[in-house]
């Protein structure tokens, strides 16, 4: 899946499409979006044809009438099966591979800044341009890194996680029903 690819807009089936779209900050231009939508439709067709999820639990899909009344045990079995499926492991790995290093990095960078602010007065007072010194530069860099990481995370989640997570969500809920 290419990073430019957008997740489906129909995340919430009952939500009107227009409201979902109008708030997408990072939305690609209209032309690119149209092209992606065409590709998405083709993919959706091929996915249904090949039964993308059938392999997940290694078991054939049960007929709906057998699980019409969900019991606690059945639900736990389904969640465990999904938890062990390769699709879920992939989603979790993608999430953790981004989030854990990113959290460690920004916390360290923030703590470094805080410790420098109290313990390195000469460094902080070093002039850069007029009254603008290292202290102000580092402070503004904290703002910049926060905005940058927010953008990177949102992009990563949209490109690498949303679509797979949504598919797995409906799949899981179908089995729970």
């Amino acid at each position, binding site marked *: 899946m290419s990073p430019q690819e957008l997740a489906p807009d129909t995340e919430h089936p009952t939500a009107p499409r227009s409201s979902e779209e109008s708030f997408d900050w990072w939305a690609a231009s209209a032309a690119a979006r149209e092209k992606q939508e065409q590709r998405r439709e083709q993919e959706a067709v091929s996915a249904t044809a090949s039964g993308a999820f059938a392999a997940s639990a290694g078991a054939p899909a049960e007929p709906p009438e057998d699980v019409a009344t969900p019991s606690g045990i059945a639900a736990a079995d389904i969640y465990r099966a999904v938890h062990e499926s390769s699709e879920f492991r992939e989603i979790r790995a993608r999430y953790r591979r981004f*989030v854990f290093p990113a959290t460690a990095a920004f916390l360290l960078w923030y703590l470094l800044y805080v410790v420098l602010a109290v313990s390195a007065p000469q460094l902080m007072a070093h002039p850069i341009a007029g*009254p603008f010194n290292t202290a102000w530069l580092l402070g503004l860099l904290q703002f910049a890194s926060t*905005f940058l990481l927010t953008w990177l995370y949102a992009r990563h989640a949209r490109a690498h996680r949303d679509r797979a*997570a949504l598919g797995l969500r409906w799949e899981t809920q179908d089995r729970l029903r």
Partner: protein
Amino acid sequence: MAAGLFVLVVLVTLGITFWAGRRSRAAEDFYTAGRDFSPMQNGFAISGDYMSAASFLGVTGLIALYGYDGLLYTIGFLVAWLLVLMLVAELVRNCGRYTLADVLTLRMRERPVRVAAGVSGIVISLLYLLGQMVGAGTLVSLLLHLHSSAARAGAIVGVGVLMVVYVTIGGMKATTWIQIVKCVLLMGGTVLLTVLVLVRFHGDLGSLMRSAARGSGQGAAYDVPGLRFGHKLTDQLDFVSLGLALVLGTAGLPHILSRFYTVPTARAARRSAVWAIGLVGAFYLMTIVLGLGAAALIGAPAIKAANSAGNTAVAQLADALGGTVLFGVISAVAFATILAVVAGLTMAASASFAHDLWAQAFRHPDEDPPSERQEVVVARISAVAIGGVAIVLSLYAQKLNVATLVALAFAVAASANLPAVLFTLFWRRFTTRGAAWAIWGGLVPALVLVVFSPVVSGSAAAIFPGAHFDWFPLQNPGLVSVPCGFLAGWLGTVTSRERAEPDAYAELEVRALTGAGAV
């Protein structure tokens, strides 16, 4: 002028409340406004909840008086959002229903965890509420030029009554719309003032910084850290402690977490966090300009003469830039800010009481849970009770510094709630005892250390200036109490006899990351 606009703010917010309260009977409506808000609306509401009077007036005043040290606050407040965005927002939205405890009890036994989470939710909200209401009393009297202690007490009681009305009648829907309106007003007022300051200095930031340093009377010390926090070792540790509390606390604030339940999906929760980061970041960048502008155009002596903590710097700046009209508008914006934030806090505290304590924890395991309608009735009654408690406590806490109180709420949230949430979401072996211990093990040390800190005794600004039981040297307990919370959670887990239920963790992980079964 200012008084008329204050009345207008009250009328508009009450109008929103009665409009929103017309048909909100179900628990879903009362706690989460039907989960019907868009990411942008919720982003504005989150920012409205977050940018309190302590930020608008307090931080701007700190920047005006102490220069760089004021900026340090804004950075902590902003960077904290990365934790919310990446580790908390989506997962909590997927797993919970109304409160933080809903997430924890997905894999823990109900009662011990509900008691702990409910109590910590109420304590955090009350501490935060106290800060806002004490600030409200000071500000209303300053902005309306009513300087008697009776006027200040009247302002506290008035704000308290209004927030109870908003929550009991309008529930989450009214609270959210009030936040949105307030956020738009606040951003509008801030942009206007920022533009006026920049125009005054012909867009030359260097000349603004130089004039500010001159106006502050501090010279070069204005542009480096240390003016407010000092250079002694305890000062430095205190500052690191504050920084830790600010950056870790936001992800444990109940009134912020419950905001993510007002959108339909986890993806919408993420987008609302992104909106919030954009708005909060832009806002804090502008407060820097406002603080520098106040120092440059008004000067530190005049700011300190009006209010020693600098809380009136923004209003004075507005007066200098736009006369009485702008002063009235900005004062009304500050007033709307206070009203909106206290409403959000009361909402969170009443949800903690009704949903966690009354409906689950105070109940025998064999007893049937109450109906949702009963729960909402109790939530409304508890909002009245919490409002009453907050009013009484605020009347006695008027001496306390607003920024200190808010920083304490952040420290308690970081120590009690954050370890429990992170362990629940990411640690497979975490147990019920671990969760309860994590919350109590963060909450109790944080509160105890505050009691024995210079905030309560031993210094001129303390509650009991005459007494001396201040053996804990730091104002903010975060540096000690946050590790305590994590340590207690770990200790409780390794010492518990029961093993963590692997199926429960599997369900939590699947639900958290895919949204399966989310309401």
